[in-house]
């Protein structure tokens, strides 16, 4: 690869990495046409992991990091002195194809700074996707960032070529957005998300292809003073209102060329993690957002323990749970038991009465679940009454030595 292109790749991958999503899931299964290139498996594949533990699935780059917007949290805002670069449409297409052929990636996640106008920028993004599909018969995964300020007909175009579309809500409240991202507007963003939801639903109903892997969004956490309760309420309303596949939470992390409005500190990674756990609880475990938030204090989740354990410790009267009798809903509330383990328990107990040894084979989380469970050979009543139960259950920090 020549020097100039390598520089662009360095600058424009660096500029794109603050988008948390790299998912390549949800697309209908496709195979390459005879002589063609690319497939999707449905579940998505992570082709590498960087030392930040994040998955590298798609070639995640910006078309350009020149940008007319001035969002305080963003390294690419127009007032930042960061190094700039711009890919041509053909350069992105060729990089994608060549990386894909070597099995480095599942496809492309393309976004861009706003150049000239939102429409012009959106047209370029669409052009890349169209060229990949048309000229290279590319059937791999394409995720396009939608620019909410672009004309609505461009969204209609983007959905034909992309597997997934996304618009970042960026900040949990319209007020924060107004303050930190002057060119953006919460109502415009929600309008475009509503448009995408409608088209995605209709296409599914009519068995046509339009962003078949749905839409997702991202919220930055820790750049403003929104509490977890409001972050979670916002995401619950986004899941409900726009049928999002995912809301990504991105801990605001130090960036080069930081803005004076947002002093830098270590990213609140633990908080981000707790939010993801809470997100899972209300989507898959039957918890209401209010219940989850009540597990912490003052609208913030407890950072020292996961939100399910926090809830259980505040509702000890609901425990212990009889593994051989409890319904699915209650089993899902037991700390340490995931949805998979619960389903296995329900299947297995039809055939035999489960004892502690059996449970150890059904879930990797038995140690955490024990104080909350009853089986014929185990009854934890006394443990549940202990005042120091929380202290006993807080995981001890362990450090994994990489180059020992």
């Amino acid at each position, binding site marked *: 690869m020549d020097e100039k292109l390598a520089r662009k790749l360095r600058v424009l991958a660096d500029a794109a990495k603050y988008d948390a999503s790299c998912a390549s899931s949800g697309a209908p299964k496709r*195979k390459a046409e005879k002589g*063609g290139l690319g497939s999707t498996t449905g579940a998505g*594949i992570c082709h590498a992991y960087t030392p930040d*533990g994040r998955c590298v699935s798609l070639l995640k780059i910006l078309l350009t990091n020149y940008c007319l917007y001035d969002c305080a949290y963003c390294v690419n805002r127009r007032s930042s002195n960061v190094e700039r670069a711009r890919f041509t449409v053909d350069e992105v297409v060729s990089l994608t194809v*060549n*990386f894909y052929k070597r099995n480095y990636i599942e496809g492309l996640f393309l976004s861009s700074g706003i150049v000239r106008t939102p429409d012009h920028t959106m047209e370029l993004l669409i052009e890349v996707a169209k060229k990949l599909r048309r000229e290279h018969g590319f059937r791999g995964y394409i995720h396009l960032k939608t620019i909410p300020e672009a004309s609505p007909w461009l969204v209609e175009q983007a959905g034909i070529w992309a597997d997934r579309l996304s618009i970042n809500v960026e900040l949990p409240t319209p007020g924060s957005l107004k303050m930190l991202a002057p060119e953006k507007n919460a109502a415009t963003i929600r309008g475009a998300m509503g448009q995408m939801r409608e088209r995605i639903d209709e296409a599914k109903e009519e068995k046509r292809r339009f962003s078949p892997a749905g839409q997702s969004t991202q919220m930055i956490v820790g750049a403003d003073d929104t509490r977890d309760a409001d972050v979670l309420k916002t995401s619950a309303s986004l899941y409900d209102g726009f049928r999002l596949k995912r809301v990504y939470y991105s801990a605001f992390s130090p960036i080069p060329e*930081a803005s004076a409005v947002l002093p830098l500190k270590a990213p609140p990674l633990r908080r981000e993690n707790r939010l993801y756990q809470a997100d899972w609880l209300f989507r898959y475990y039957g918890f209401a957002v209010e219940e989850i938030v009540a597990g912490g204090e003052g609208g913030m989740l407890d950072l020292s323990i996961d939100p399910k354990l926090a809830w259980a410790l505040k509702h000890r009267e609901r425990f212990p749970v009889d593994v051989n009798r409890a319904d699915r809903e209650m089993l899902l509330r037991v700390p340490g038991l995931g949805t998979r383990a619960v389903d296995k328990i329900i299947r297995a107990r039809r055939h035999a009465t*489960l004892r502690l040894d059996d449970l150890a084979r059904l879930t990797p989380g038995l140690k955490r679940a024990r104080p909350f469970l009853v089986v014929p050979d185990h009854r934890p009543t006394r443990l549940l009454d202990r005042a120091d139960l929380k202290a006993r259950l807080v995981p001890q920090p362990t450090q994994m030595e990489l180059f020992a």
Partner: protein
Amino acid sequence: MRRVRLSPGADLDGFRHSVRGLVAEGVPPDEAVFEAGEEAGLFGAPASEEEAPTLSLPRAVADLVRLVVCHADPERYALIYRLVWRVTHGERRLLEVGSDPLVHRLERMAKGVRRDIHKMHAFLRFREAERVGERERFVAWFEPEHHILEAAAPFFRDRFSGFDWSIHTPEASAHWNGERLIVGPGGRPEDAPDVDGFEEGWATYYASTFNPARANTRAMLNEMPKKYWRNMPETSLIPSMLAAAPQRVAAMVAAQPAEPRKRPPTRALRAMTDQEPKTLEDLNRIILASEPLVPGATRAVLGEGRIGSELAFVGEQPGDQEDIEGRPFVGPAGKLLTRALDDAGIPRAEAYVTNAVKHFKFEQRGKRRIHKKPTAGEVKHYRWWLMKELDLVHPRLTIALGATAALALAGKTVSVTKVRGPMGYVGLDGKERQGFVTVHPSFLLRLPDEAAKRREYDAFVADLHAAHELARDLAA
């Protein structure tokens, strides 16, 4: 004691064959020994020469067997046979009992195999090799943990159909030539080229996409254990990336917010928000340049008529004739509309005509192009353009011809028979506009008997007349 000899690797066929025989002969698991690979030669005789009856196993068991035979554990066949025996001897739903030690063990083995296959799909890296003939050629070296090459190879065939490739592993190799997937003998790392022109670029990408403020090696190692690293070019950068991370973060935090070096791009900012098409020509240029949003479709057929026309007529979509000529309402339905306008006393010059959907949606059947009705979703793909178009033409009254046009105006399904006549609708700016709903002239063409045709034609002309009156009233 019965000894069963199986080929090295994952010998699913051999195993299936012998298990059928063993079950048919009633050999319990404790009396069967399975030998795989080279050492198998020391013992004789396969379980049975004759084909025993097929076993009927639950689907989940068959799936589990297919995975576990790929496992590296020499005990795998004995364990599966134990499972098959129990399933065929009264415990048909055994797999539901995840707490059973045998089921638990086999499921973990299956999980290990599944993971190994998944990791091969993820972590294998091709290098470009010299061409043999016309086709591009790529070669990879990979070291799986289990006997998974044959199970993993179809994924690469489905994905990389357009070039030739070979995958070499220590115990076997797979080759694709555009037609067939061939399995060959094992090889060595040297079977793959030792460089590739894109590896440096890939490493550049890998290093740039890493956020030093979030270093988390535990998560990385969970998903990408070190055993895979040596065949992944990017992993050689990990030590230096991690070593530099704390300093990079400290430098970012310590840096004082800097004043922008460039002045704010005032003119560009003003121009940025000014992107709306301001004339019908602007909008039409956009429509012409855009991709059709319905299947079939060869070219966009734009609206026609004077800006500021008194009446705008919206049809469904261009038909065969319209698509050929590139003009709206020139086919049989268009001719009928012209006649009806005449009979209603509306000069054609006073009428702007366009369609809800700007492309001809059709299905090719032999030489004929069969008109396909656009779906609601497709009509909505085009709705933004129609609304903008009507705003720019700015008629006094918009007349929807038929259900598709009515749907396009209203933004939701509307029954023509029910709402026939004046209908308000909301434009993109949220303000109410005046519309009018009647039938599409093609409806008149399809009526079978003459009496109905005449009756409906008169009603259509009466509608046009009423619409014309309404438009005049709106002007007053």
